[in-house]
């Protein structure tokens, strides 16, 4: 048994909308797998099926070797879930939360208490353990949420958009916690709208859209398929856009022009070389640039590339 998660042809409909439309996925033990997709792609529905919260209409899903429908109780004993919204009792204190859930995992009073103290310390929450969760910052809440998910040292941990709504500091905190978990051998399924997050944390990434996987691979493989990094050039004069596009030393394929923002965006392979060449070319032609930036492709661009159709994805920034 080397697969921690197996999903075969899982379907789930809400009314006439298919949230999952024949999803297939396998995740190897001890790896971090990213599910990347826009809002409404079916990521959360997939997590809810895998964590036994939702019954699939069709297909088969196994977690840690057990069927999520027929052996739900066994699955529940082996998983941890960090959902999109803090799954905590907001009225209670941090320690009370850990103790409550520890008891519900049937650790018994003494072990639940000891485990609570241990986790508070590990997640840097020991001095706020008595405070009500309502008074916690977003990052603290997320850490406590993660601590609760780890009470039983789950075999498989589900992280559903774990950093949505967090400030950069909170995000960094969650990322470092996830990394240390992975070092201890936990399998992680991570959903995210941010390519960067999947890139930072996941060994493999599956891109999900309309309830099915449309591409998968390592972050590097996906990025290579999407054309890797991009260079954005904002000109001072919109009238020079045409001239600038013609002389830029980048392949014409994949160049986009946004006249309103006086922006040219183009894929690059060698970041620094491309930057130097673009600067030189503009300078020689006497075209003034207001801004030049190198960046990762946005989720929009990944999707445009992978699906070849227009997606109404919000800028993932």
């Amino acid at each position, binding site marked *: 048994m080397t697969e921690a998660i197996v999903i075969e042809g899982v379907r789930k409909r809400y009314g006439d909308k298919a949230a999952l439309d024949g999803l297939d996925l396998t995740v190897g033990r001890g790896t971090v797998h990213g599910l990347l997709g826009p809002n409404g792609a079916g990521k959360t529905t997939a997590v*809810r099926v895998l*964590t*036994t*919260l*939702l*019954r699939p209409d069709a297909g088969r899903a196994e977690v840690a070797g057990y069927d999520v429908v027929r052996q739900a*109780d066994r699955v*529940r*004993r082996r*998983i941890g*879930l960090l*959902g*999109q*919204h*803090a*799954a*905590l*009792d*907001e*009225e*209670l*204190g941090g320690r*009370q939360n850990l103790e*409550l*859930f520890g*008891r*519900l*995992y*049937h650790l018994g009073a003494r072990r639940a208490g000891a485990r609570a103290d241990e986790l508070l310390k590990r997640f840097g929450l020991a001095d706020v353990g008595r405070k*009500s969760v309502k008074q916690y910052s977003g990052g603290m809440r997320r850490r406590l949420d993660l601590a*609760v998910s780890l009470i039983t040292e789950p075999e498989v941990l589900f992280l559903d958009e774990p950093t949505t709504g967090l400030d950069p500091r909170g995000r960094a905190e969650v990322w470092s916690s996830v990394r240390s978990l992975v070092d201890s051998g936990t399998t992680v399924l991570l959903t995210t709208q941010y390519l960067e997050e999947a890139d930072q944390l996941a060994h493999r990434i599956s891109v999900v859209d309309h309830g099915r996987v449309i591409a998968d691979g390592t972050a590097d493989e996906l990025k290579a398929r999407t054309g890797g990094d991009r260079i954005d050039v904002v000109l001072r004069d919109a009238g020079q856009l045409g001239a600038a596009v013609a002389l830029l030393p980048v392949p014409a394929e994949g160049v986009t022009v946004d006249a309103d923002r006086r922006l040219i965006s183009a894929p690059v392979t060698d970041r620094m070389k491309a930057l130097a060449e673009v600067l030189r070319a503009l300078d020689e032609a006497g075209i003034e640039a207001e801004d030049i930036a190198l960046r990762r492709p946005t989720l929009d661009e990944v999707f445009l590339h992978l699906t070849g159709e227009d997606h109404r994805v919000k800028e993932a920034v």
Partner: protein
Amino acid sequence: MNTYALTDSWTMTRRELAHWARQPVQVLVGLVFPVMLLLMFGFLIGGGRGVQGEYVDFLVPGMLALTMAFGLEGTMLQVTQDLNKGVIDRFRSMPMTNGAVLVGRCAADMLQSAIGLAVLIGVGYAIGWRAHAGAGEFLGAVGLLLLFRFAMLWIGIHLAMVAGKPEMVQAVQILVWPVGFLSNALATPETMPDWLGTVVEWNPMSQTATAVRELFGGPGGEAGHVWAAVVWPLALVAVFFPLAVRRFGRLSR
């Protein structure tokens, strides 16, 4: 059901009690509000339209029943809050007895109602109400009130799951008032227009109020209502308990 059903239910009940300890003011307000109503109706508005005998002897049992009816709002609010937070997903993704969530709610609400009854009875005594009854009848009356509250509890849980959002609770809260007052809690049906009097007499809460008045030996009591005060709540539970449990199970659809 599994071997942990009892432990889990107890853990969930303790969770509710821990909430009380965290929010003593809220608990206090919950206890004081019916007392305030009692005093208002007893001294400000009262007069006991059509009541034979002491109005306070009529009013206190009525207020006890009304308080049990209003308990529905509290239950609804708590359940919708739990449902709307991610915490319910946590419970449902854990190897715990799922029903323990409802049992905990039930135990805590019943305990709170019992305390509320005790406070209200105490205040009733202080303002001159007396039960003209033996210990058995007294306990029987309290039992009927709690049975009625138990029915309100399952209606509350079911409505909370149907309504879903805390915003909807407000709508129900507003509706609980006319339903609560469309009873004989504060005045006798004889003083009302015929059609209204009929509605009022059929209100299950009126049955409980009348039976309790009978057991306490005060005005407004009529023989033969104890059965109705047992059967009505049981019938409501028989309808709403399975509905609520089924709704809870359907969260996975």
